[in-house]
């Protein structure tokens, strides 16, 4: 298995999707084994590709720019050639590992979690397609395949978020997710076409090269970059497109894990990381990414603080993380961003699967109905805790290393640095809060508590595996570990090929961040364990602020109002215009005016013979005169 054979990877789950979608109901166990087999094969096949990659890297060193392989899809001779092709380089390798592993975990987990679901087979079919699309997305060597899979990723998340189709809320949430991301995709598509127009190719590497050579006009480039980022913002749920992500919690919990950790939302980060050379060429491009990232990370931290739905809290933590990744990209450090993405995939999947385990056991997901589960579900509690504290940035867990890399990268930019520091305790605080409210204290609903139990092996094994990875993956920042994992020169070199980027370890920053995280965790512990009545009183005193956070800054309301009162009302006006003006006045009006003309003209029909005869004679005279004078 060479790098150029990587096109096989997405085809495996895609084939599984086709088989499951067409024949799923007739297969034993609805074919779940086929989906797992496919993704398992992908995971296994990733390793020879990594080996091939490292060999090539060792051979060519920094000059190695990846391997591409493509086939023609359609062609308008001389004018347009559309290809499907794969391109493997460092970022791709990282993404492949993340996607295939998390997807495998999620699918195994779903065996237990989704058991007995009415549309079990369909669920596996869609999840296979989801993985296939995401693999194609990260492997794509051109914008066509990228957009192709980008949209399919959106479709699959739509189908999966709306999996519980009998729920009105799920139907609405899936619709919201698809439409919101689709709005961003408008930007992406326009950007792709603009770049094609300027460079005549859809190949990503060629476009970057052309842009760097100055072959793309500045205005076009600026517009493309902004529009490109719009697409990434939609997919990665960046402010102000973030509204769909919390609602997407309507989907089955393993799906949330997949969407948040490995597939849907990281696609935006991947896209920006991949296209970062273009952003660097445009004045203000990086600042735009940075600003959006900061905004998202800060706002989501405040909202995460007050959410009571365990999944929603985690969803906001994802926004928080995604914001951080964009911040890292915004200061030109894709290595830090990709490292964060890499580690985030494991602990975020872990968090969601842990939450899923809780929901599976108690059938509740609001923290007001949970609590005290430590005794009943110790394994879930421990693994969830590892994930939560990793998210919070507790030292030596995966999140800690990645977050510190971002902070180091931010040192140059004081404002951004301060902003991120500000969010650190907030993040730590709400992760502590959700952990405490779920697993510690007294059970708030004894009934639910009583029935709670650890899930079957299919649920616990993925939890443990992910927890272990969360404990260790952070150490890839050290060159030695990176090499041991097969990345020569550490992961930094792999991800960023423009030059060796060894990860710095700034002691001052690290100590500072540890202090802040500790403060946050301590505050959380104090507020929800030592003085549990405190949060309520603070909430009561700061009612408006709490309402602001809990209602997600009223953005949903604003959007809803815009949709209802501007867009739909405008549409109704257009429809009214069409019916009453264009049709009833224009088209029917032509008919009526014909009728009216007939009404007017009928009065010449006097019914009197001499009148007709006179008219005839006048006509004859006129015609004869014409003929006479012409001759």
């Amino acid at each position, binding site marked *: 298995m060479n790098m150029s054979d990587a096109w096989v990877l997405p085809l495996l789950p895609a084939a599984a999707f086709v088989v499951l979608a067409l024949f799923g109901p007739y297969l034993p166990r609805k074919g779940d084994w086929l989906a797992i087999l496919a993704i398992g094969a992908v995971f296994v096949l990733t390793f020879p590709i990594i080996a091939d990659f490292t060999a090539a890297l060792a051979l060519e060193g920094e000059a190695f720019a990846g391997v591409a392989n493509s086939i023609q899809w359609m062609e308008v001779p001389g004018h347009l050639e559309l290809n499907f092709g794969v391109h493997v380089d460092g970022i791709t390798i990282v993404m492949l590992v993340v996607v295939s592993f998390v997807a495998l975990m999620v699918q195994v987990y779903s065996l237990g979690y989704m058991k007995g679901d009415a549309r079990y087979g369909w669920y596996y079919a869609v999840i296979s397609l989801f993985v296939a699309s995401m693999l194609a997305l990260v492997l794509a060597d051109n914008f066509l395949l990228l957009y192709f899979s980008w949209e399919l990723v959106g479709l699959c998340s739509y189908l999966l978020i709306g999996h519980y189709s009998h729920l009105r809320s799920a139907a609405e949430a899936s619709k919201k997710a698809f439409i919101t991301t689709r709005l961003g995709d408008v930007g992406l598509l326009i950007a792709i076409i603009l770049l094609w127009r300027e460079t005549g190719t859809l190949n990503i590497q060629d476009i970057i090269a052309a842009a760097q050579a100055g072959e793309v006009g500045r205005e076009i480039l600026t517009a493309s970059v902004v529009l490109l980022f719009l697409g990434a913002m939609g997919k990665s749920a960046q402010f102000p497109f973030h509204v769909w992500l919390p609602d997407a919690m309507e989907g089955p919990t393993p799906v949330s894990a997949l969407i948040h950790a490995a597939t849907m939302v990281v696609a935006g980060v991947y896209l920006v990381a991949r296209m970062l050379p273009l952003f660097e060429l445009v004045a203000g491009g990086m600042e735009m990414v940075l600003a959006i990232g900061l905004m998202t990370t800060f706002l989501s931290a405040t909202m995460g603080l007050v959410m009571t739905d365990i999944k929603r809290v985690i969803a906001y933590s994802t926004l928080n993380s995604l914001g951080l990744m964009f911040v890292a990209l915004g200061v030109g450090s894709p290595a830090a961003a990709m490292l964060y993405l890499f580690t985030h995939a494991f602990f975020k999947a872990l968090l969601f699967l842990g939450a899923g385990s809780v929901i599976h056991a108690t059938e509740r997901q609001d923290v007001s109905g949970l609590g005290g589960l430590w005794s009943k579900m110790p394994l879930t509690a421990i693994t969830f805790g590892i994930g939560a504290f990793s998210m919070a940035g507790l030292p030596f867990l995966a999140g800690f290393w990645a977050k510190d890399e971002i902070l180091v990268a931010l040192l140059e930019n004081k404002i951004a640095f301060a902003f991120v520091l500000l969010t650190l305790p907030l993040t730590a605080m709400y992760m502590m809060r959700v952990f405490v409210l779920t697993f510690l204290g007294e059970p708030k609903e004894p009934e639910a508590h009583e029935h709670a139990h650890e899930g079957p092996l299919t649920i616990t094994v993925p939890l443990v595996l992910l927890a272990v990875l969360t404990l260790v993956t952070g150490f890839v920042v050290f060159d030695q570990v990176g090499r041991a994992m097969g990345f020569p020169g550490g992961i930094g070199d792999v991800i960023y090929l423009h030059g060796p980027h060894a990860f710095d370890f700034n002691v001052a920053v690290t100590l500072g961040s540890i202090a802040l995280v500790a403060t946050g965790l301590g505050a959380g512990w104090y507020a929800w364990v030592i003085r549990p009545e405190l949060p309520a009183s603070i909430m009561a005193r700061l009612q408006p602020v709490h309402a602001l956070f809990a209602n997600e800054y009223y953005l949903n309301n604003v959007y809803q109002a815009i949709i209802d009162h501007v867009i739909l009302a405008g549409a109704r006006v257009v429809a009214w215009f069409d019916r009453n003006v264009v049709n009833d006045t224009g088209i029917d009006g032509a008919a009526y005016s014909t009728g009216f003309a007939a009404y007017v003209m009928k009065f010449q029909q006097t019914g009197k013979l*001499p*009148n007709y005869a*006179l008219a005839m*004679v*006048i006509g*004859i*005279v006129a015609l*004869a*005169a014409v003929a*006479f004078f012409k001759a």
Partner: protein
Amino acid sequence: MTVAQLIFYVIAALAVAGGLGVVLARNTVYAALFLILALLAVAGIYILLASEFLALVQVLIYAGAITVLLLFGLMLTRVDDLEESMVGAQWPLAAVASALLMGLLITTVATSDWPGDADGMITRIPFETLGQALFRQWAVPFEIASLVLLIALVGAIVLTHDEEGDVEETK
């Protein structure tokens, strides 16, 4: 001015006078009588054109049969000779149109080049030649014309024949 020309002008004047009488007379019977005058004058014109047969036919059929028929028509339709009922409201317009038509026709006649102009020579056609032509060369149209007459006859009878119930409506 030759004698022939003089005769022509007299006859032409009579024809025009008769025509004007037809369209202007206030009394319907007078109008019919003027028609006879005009038709007879036209017969005279035919003689001037050396078509005696035609003149004969004109006198017999037109001046005789048709005018009598028209007089019967006048009688049967009992028209009261009220002045206002004789001339339609559009007469000024009609006069203009007719005058224009006349002007146009006469101008056309005057500005065109005609054969036989110079000497005014015409050819007399004997009855025999005419008869030969009518029954040989023009036999088919002749038969068709007779058929037309027959149909007109039958049609006239059917139209004027009273069906039951018709009489009630006539009052």
